[in-house]
């Protein structure tokens, strides 16, 4: 009996053994076959995904730590085509909450390109709109008819935001949705602010989870500007442009000791949070920042550079006299004074105080071509200042030998005609007079903050076009000139040096239009220890064409605000302090 069943048991056992062995062989085969290796390789591919990490764009602060440019959260709203969804509901929601056209949204999600599993409906959706859509998605998630929005996906990311709106818009520039900075600081320091995006292979397999890559964010920048002063001069500039009927205006406030731009305003300005205004506000060739991008004939403010060169070259002294007959013939042209009058015997301070074209033309022609243009070049005319803002233009200083230079240019250049400069060039050149002969590099960046460390930038001297003695002499002459003139730019309690400018505007048909001017004023103070330099330029004012009437009062108001904000006491108190200590 036992033997009878024995072989049967053995047979079953053998069969089971063979089957078991077959299973084992097949398991080994599956693990080692070429197909298995391919599947493993594919699996490795799906274990990782390429992901690009964009570091947060660095913030921009004013000198007191007030945020001028930061970041805000916006959303990319898309549809996961792997998820079952009702296209009508999704398209309708896109129309209601994202402002998309229903038909195009419907087409995007029902007719995607081959192989596409995710469709972006709209990017840069403001947080409030995205959150409203999220709330709607949640409210219909259990819709019994299946009209839910489970397929909608929300991916938050950062977008540039400007909490001050249009404040300092011209010098900040802006960032578009491509993440690149345009104009101003945003363009000039784009690489530093943006950081370096990194595309990495990130494991999706939780068994291979890795820590976040160490991607340093963009550096933060601290600017030299003072937010409160900037706000004030913008407000003042807008009012001045309106009151004077000017086409545009520019104000620059700089510390002549170190070149720090304390404030810089031009018109027009746009709300940096709404870059769609750009095309409307800056049509055609309208410069984004006139302070650095618009060259024009500055007029009489340039006389300070002519006089600086003449004094430094010993062509004249402050006591040199000139008999002004009201007419000066040179290079085949006749030069007149601003009022066509003859001012009689004048010393050099009188020539500046009365802004005599005839006198300054005599000065430059007495200097001669080489010395005069040598000084103009040393003052940086015709060259970029190198200010750290994008979009600067060099202006134009015609030189002997140039095809369009004529001998009369030597005479007219002396009082700012036939030469084109930008406001920032004039400010930089004048800093040499206010700063003991040392011309400073105008700059907007105070410090870079990265990895928790602040790197302050050192002031730079770009040249010494005139001696300290010349600078101090001219500095004092310009103060006397303003006092003699009874300038509207004088500020009670503070001795000011400065010069007005009223430049006729070249006509497109040749010659000059005497009814349209560039009215300007450049001044600095306190004269014995300059701590601020202010340049005001109003383009084509209609209430008055004279810089002394429309620009000088603006200068005065800027200084009155500046001394309060920066805590600069009146000269009497300051000198008392210095003498006491």
């Amino acid at each position: 009996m036992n033997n009878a069943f024995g072989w049967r048991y053995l047979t079953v056992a053998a069969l089971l053994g063979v089957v078991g062995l077959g299973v084992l062989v097949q398991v080994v085969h599956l693990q080692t076959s070429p197909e298995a290796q391919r599947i493993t390789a594919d699996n490795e591919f799906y274990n990782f995904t390429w992901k690009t990490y964009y570091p947060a764009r660095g913030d921009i602060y004013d000198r007191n730590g007030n945020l001028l440019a930061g970041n805000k959260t916006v959303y990319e709203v898309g549809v996961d085509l792997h998820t079952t969804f009702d296209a009508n509901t999704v398209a309708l929601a896109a129309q209601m909450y994202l402002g998309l056209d229903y038909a195009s949204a419907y087409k995007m999600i029902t007719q995607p390109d081959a192989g596409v599993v995710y469709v972006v409906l709209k990017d840069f959706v403001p947080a409030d709109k995205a959150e409203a859509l999220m709330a709607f998605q949640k409210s219909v998630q259990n819709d019994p008819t299946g009209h839910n929005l489970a397929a909608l996906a929300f991916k938050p990311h950062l977008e540039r935001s400007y909490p001050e709106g249009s404040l300092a818009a011209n010098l900040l520039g802006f960032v578009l949705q491509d993440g690149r900075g345009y104009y101003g600081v945003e363009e000039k320091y784009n690489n530093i602010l943006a950081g370096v995006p990194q595309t990495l292979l990130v494991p999706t397999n939780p068994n291979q989870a890795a820590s976040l890559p160490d991607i340093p964010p963009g550096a933060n920048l601290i600017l030299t500007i003072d937010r409160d002063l900037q706000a004030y001069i913008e407000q003042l500039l807008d009012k001045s442009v309106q009151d004077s009927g000017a086409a545009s205006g520019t104000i620059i406030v700089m510390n002549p000791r170190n070149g720090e731009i304390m404030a810089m305003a031009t018109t027009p300005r746009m709300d940096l949070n709404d870059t769609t205004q750009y095309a409307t506000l800056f049509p055609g060739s309208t410069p984004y920042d006139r302070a650095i991008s618009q060259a024009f004939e500055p007029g009489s403010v340039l006389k300070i550079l002519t006089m600086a060169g003449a004094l430094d070259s010993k062509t004249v002294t402050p006591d040199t006299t000139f008999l002004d007959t009201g007419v000066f013939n040179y290079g085949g042209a006749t030069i007149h004074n601003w009022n066509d009058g003859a001012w009689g015997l004048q010393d050099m301070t009188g020539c500046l105080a009365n802004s005599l074209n005839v006198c300054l033309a005599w000065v430059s022609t007495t200097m001669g071509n080489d010395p005069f243009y040598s000084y103009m070049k040393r003052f940086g005319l015709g060259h970029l200042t190198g200010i750290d803002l994008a979009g600067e233009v060099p202006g134009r200083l015609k030189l002997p030998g140039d095809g369009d230079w004529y001998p009369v240019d030597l005479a007219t250049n002396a009082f700012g005609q036939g030469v084109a400069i930008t406001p920032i060039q004039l400010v930089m050149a004048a800093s040499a007079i206010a700063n003991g002969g040392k011309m400073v590099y105008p700059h907007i960046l105070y410090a870079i903050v990265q990895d928790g460390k602040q790197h302050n930038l050192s002031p730079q001297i770009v040249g010494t076009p005139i001696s300290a003695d010349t600078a101090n002499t001219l500095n004092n002459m310009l103060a006397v000139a303003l006092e003699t003139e009874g300038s509207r730019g004088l500020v009670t309690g503070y001795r000011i040096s400065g010069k007005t400018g009223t430049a006729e505007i070249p006509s497109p048909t040749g010659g000059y239009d005497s009814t349209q001017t560039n009215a300007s004023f450049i001044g600095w103070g306190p004269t014995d220890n300059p701590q601020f330099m202010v340049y005001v330029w109003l383009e084509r004012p209609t209430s008055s064409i004279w810089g002394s009437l429309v620009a000088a009062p603006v200068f005065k108001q800027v200084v009155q605000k500046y001394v309060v904000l920066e805590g600069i006491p009146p000269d009497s108190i300051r000198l008392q302090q210095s003498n006491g200590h």
Partner: protein
Amino acid sequence: MHIENVTQIVQKYRQAPWRAQRQWIGLFLLGLVGVAMVAGIYVNITTRADLAGRDIQIVNDEILTHQQENADYDTQLASLTSTDSMMKRAEAIGFQPVTPDEMTYVVVPGYQPKGPINMSSAPQLSSAPLILPAYTESLFDWFANQIDATPPSGGQP
């Protein structure tokens, strides 16, 4: 006679066949339980590692989210304290801009005017990996590291 006696004695003390089978089955089951225990421990450890990995992924996402939220809050705060809004608030509670005539300067010996801001912060966290090696290294790696870390015998006094 003598051989027969010996055979009888051997047969008497021989394991019964069913007992030998049970022993083999017992040994097999013991091995099976051992394998099952190892497999169970492996599954348990692997699952916990996967859960920890998943948690890390979630935390990574949360870090990014919080960084974005912080940036967002900074900007919102700056909007609330913008020049325009602060001026309006100041005017609403009765303040007005001071003019130079209204300023009184007091000489304070040793006073240093406030300079531009310094935004240097506390020393940053080290750039050491946030995930400890214990979460990523294999048993073999751990042994290798332990061996490497063991000081050689007979070292310095």
